[in-house]
């Protein structure tokens, strides 16, 4: 019996590892979200309250809930922007602020982007914040960094300062977050293509291209 004991022990541990791994996988497997009909975005009517990149009337909408302090959001922003250019005029991106509580400066960054938006430069600030993410997230005074970025993209700095602390920027960030919570967003980036969320492994250039192609085909078929 002793001869077989090590084999039995190893087999038991192998089975226990596989079993617990499979159970954990089932628990952690992401639930794909669908935006309910009453919360779906329409075309032009919502345009004023959203930050849109690309053709506002595009048949495919990619709605991203992002956090400027989140590294995967930064990676995603890079290729999503390239994708909009590639699919122009068939794809638009809608950006929603979803600053996570455990990211110390994420809310301030969202406010900075919204303050820039009030001067018509949301996307410029969006791009700088992601590009310089590694710098400002480690800065001792993030406000100073945001103000220098505001200067870089040609904003009126005094107005930018006022807007960052103002109610309008706060209201926009809060409203984006509220929308996120109402459609089940918990993590960033959470990305919806025509109201259906992407799996984490679809958030690659190839995965996203396949999803956008499928959405375009679907749109063409329903016409």
């Amino acid at each position, binding site marked *: 019996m*002793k001869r077989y*004991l*090590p084999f039995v*022990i*190893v087999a038991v*541990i*192998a089975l226990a*590892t596989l079993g*617990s*791994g499979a159970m*954990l*996988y089932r628990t*952690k*497997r*992401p639930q794909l979200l669908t935006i309910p009909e009453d919360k779906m975005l329409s075309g032009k009517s919502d345009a004023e309250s959203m930050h849109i990149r690309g053709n506002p009337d595009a048949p495919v909408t990619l709605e991203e809930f992002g*956090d400027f*302090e*989140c*590294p*995967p*959001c930064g990676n995603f922003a890079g290729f999503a922007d390239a994708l909009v250019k590639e699919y122009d005029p068939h794809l638009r991106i809608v950006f929603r602020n979803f600053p*996570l509580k*455990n*990211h110390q400066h994420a809310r301030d960054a969202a406010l900075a982007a919204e303050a820039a938006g009030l001067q018509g430069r949301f996307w410029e600030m969006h791009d700088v914040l992601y590009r310089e993410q590694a710098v400002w997230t*480690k800065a001792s005074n993030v406000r100073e960094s945001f103000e220098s970025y505001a200067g870089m993209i040609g904003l009126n700095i005094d107005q930018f300062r006022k807007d960052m602390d103002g109610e309008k920027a706060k209201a926009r960030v809060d409203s984006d977050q509220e929308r996120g919570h109402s459609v089940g967003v*918990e*993590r*960033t*980036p*959470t990305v919806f293509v025509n109201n259906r969320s992407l*799996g*984490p*492994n679809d*958030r690659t250039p190839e995965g996203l291209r396949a999803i956008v192609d499928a959405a375009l085909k679907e749109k063409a078929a329903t016409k």
Partner: protein
Amino acid sequence: MTLSRFRTILYTVAAIVSLAGLADATYLAVQALTGETLGCGGSPDCFRVLGSSYARVGGIPVALFGTLAYFSVFTFATFAAFGYVRARTFLILTVGAMFLATLWLLYVQAFLLHAYCRYCLFSAAITFLLAGLVIALPPSKDASVS
């Protein structure tokens, strides 16, 4: 206590310690396979490390290699405790390779990513402990089962 009994105890301790590493690596591997590490939600530093390009080799999560490595250590340590001489050699080789991989991963966290993931640090501690146990093993002269 005889030398052979002391060795058996050390192999048994190594097998038990490797189970902690196995649990840690399995958790990280599952996180990577579900895509959880490709988004933010938990500790920012952990996600900076686990979501980085260094966390995958050829598209395969490093944690999955960790799972296999810890399982191998458990297997070899168990067989070594039961007197299988060849298992001792494999155990030393596996722990040595894991020690080198751990040094590389610590370097990546400290100097390239400037962020530490506590799960990875726990795994590093386990590997160092295993390396210490392997070094503490007295050289084997008696071969019971090969």
